[in-house]
């Protein structure tokens, strides 16, 4: 697969301006990171519908809930660690009220590389998907992110959109995405299935190719919607393939791998689920690609895990 690389973060401001132009109900809330998240573009275009709280994330989320309760559609855009962590009970209250608040979380997982472990949001999927009423979407490219914003506007209730700061392949969507649907990107056989969340797309593509080069035939699946999850599809995959590998820029606890395991485990017989992500540790500063490499988000790790299972299953040896 040949492709250029891009980031999702860079289009956030433009996408919000586009929907803000069409829909006067759209508000954007920021906590002093508008330049980093690119929502300063919305601020310039729609100053009356832009709310700058300063460095007060809890205040920001509760304000967003108040705005939503007046019939508007607020988007709170901030780093994932602040949205999902600093303001968790405020987000929870928004969910409890089923308030029509939308969250766009940038710098998820290890994407805040140089900032170090304090800023690495390796728990955001777990923290958000556990909340009733919350929808959790993980777009993997520009088209999907744009679709996420539109789906969020259409959906009545809270939505969390995870927007990569690190690079993703600059490829168009293969299909129109929907809440609750996952998408098979490649289907070449049933030796394995790699299921990935959006911010791990490049690693997923590279890993799939490496497996193919080893003679394994598998499936590549873009989860897109972590909650609600495409349960029937995951059940089908878990009975179809020999091994499921989940790839996530997130802790291996409670994230994509956890969610997939919860579904697979309901089946009498299912493929083992190998969770590749950040182990139960705090990370460190560095370029995000290098941190990912060091903490296990790398192709060799995928091949090693697959090989280990292949031995156990007495299948194709890599």
């Amino acid at each position, binding site marked *: 697969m040949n492709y250029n690389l891009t980031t999702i973060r860079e289009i956030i401001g433009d996408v919000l301006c586009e929907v803000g132009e069409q829909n006067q109900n759209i*508000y954007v809330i920021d906590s002093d990171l508008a330049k980093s998240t690119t929502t300063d573009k919305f601020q310039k275009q729609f100053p*009356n*519908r832009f*709310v700058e*709280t*300063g460095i*007060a994330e*809890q*205040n*920001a*989320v*509760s*304000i*967003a*809930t*108040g*705005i*939503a*309760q*007046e*019939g*508007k559609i*607020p988007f709170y855009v901030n780093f994932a660690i602040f949205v999902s962590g600093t303001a968790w*009970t*405020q987000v929870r*209250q928004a969910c*409890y*009220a*089923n*308030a029509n608040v939308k969250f766009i979380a940038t710098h998820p997982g290890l994407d805040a590389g140089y900032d170090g472990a304090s800023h690495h949001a390796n728990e955001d999927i777990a923290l958000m998907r556990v909340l009733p009423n919350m929808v959790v979407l993980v777009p993997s490219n520009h088209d999907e992110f744009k679709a996420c914003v539109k789906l969020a506007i259409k959906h009545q209730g809270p939505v969390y959109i995870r927007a990569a700061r690190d690079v993703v392949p600059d490829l168009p969507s293969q299909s129109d995405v929907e809440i609750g649907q996952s998408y098979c990107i490649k289907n070449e056989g049933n030796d394995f299935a790699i299921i990935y969340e959006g911010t791990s797309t490049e690693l997923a593509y590279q890993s799939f190719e490496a497996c193919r080069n080893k003679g394994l035939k598998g499936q590549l699946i873009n989860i897109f919607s972590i909650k609600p999850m495409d349960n029937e599809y995951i059940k089908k995959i878990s009975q179809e393939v020999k091994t499921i590998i989940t790839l996530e820029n997130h802790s291996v606890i409670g994230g994509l791998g956890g969610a997939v395991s919860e579904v697979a485990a309901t089946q009498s017989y299912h493929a083992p689920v190998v969770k590749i992500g950040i182990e139960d540790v705090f990370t460190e500063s560095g370029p995000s690609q290098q941190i990912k490499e060091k903490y296990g988000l790398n192709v060799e790790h995928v091949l090693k895990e697959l090989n280990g299972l292949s031995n156990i299953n007495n299948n194709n040896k890599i």
Partner: protein
Amino acid sequence: MGLKMKERKELELLANQNRRHIIEMVYQAGVGHVGGALSIIDILTVIYELDVDFNNPVRSRVILSKGHAVPAQYAVLCSKGVIDESEFKTFRQLNSRLQGHPYTCDIPEVDATTGLLGQGFSLAVGHAIVKKNNKENTHVYAIAGDGEMQEGEMWEAIMYAAHHKLNNLIFIIDYNRLSSGGPTNDIINMESFIDKVKAFHLYAIEIDGHNMEEIVSAINEARAVVDKPTCIIANTVKGKGISYMESVAKWHSSGLTDEEYEIAKNDLQKIEVKIKNEL
């Protein structure tokens, strides 16, 4: 602009009826935060009488940030016909819409889902931003407990409101001086509220939170301020109106025995007679 004696006494009667609702609810349910509900009921009664019109879709809002005082809000909503007295016994029980803290999904008229202290002023700011953009002639009232002001987010909200001169916003601090664990100022000293909110650039008014004349006057004064949000610091008595509850920490949250219920009813009956005699 003094209140006419008749208007004042009518408000007092209404507040007394709402006190009776609170006592009925907490007695019948066997649980509830009765003390802090009784301390805000006079203010709450006035706000709804003066400025909340449920027949108008564009209306003022009342955010009960100290959500545990929800029996007071249900009591007023009962007076307004939103809730029926027959529902009181279901308060805090299974399969009831009278949840332990305000919940908009079941009763939209409560205006905000609260309960976790510290978030209500921010919710009110959100409402106020939209109402200001809409150029509505309405207000957003947000009521906090004195102990609740120990939550940092409340001051974040105040900073935002002052910076943006949200003059459609009226914060109220129910200064009944008692928290769950004892005297508020022994736990963490909050003195002086008036100095603090002035330093945060709010328009500050201090009143006796049980004096109808002062409550009405403060709300009218707040509504006339053009360049600032207002904060009303209401000096109140936790458990106000019930002889054995006033300023007694136990009545932060407790059910009533049959005997306590009878005394409470009797206390409120005496107040009613007194008000009527003055009419």
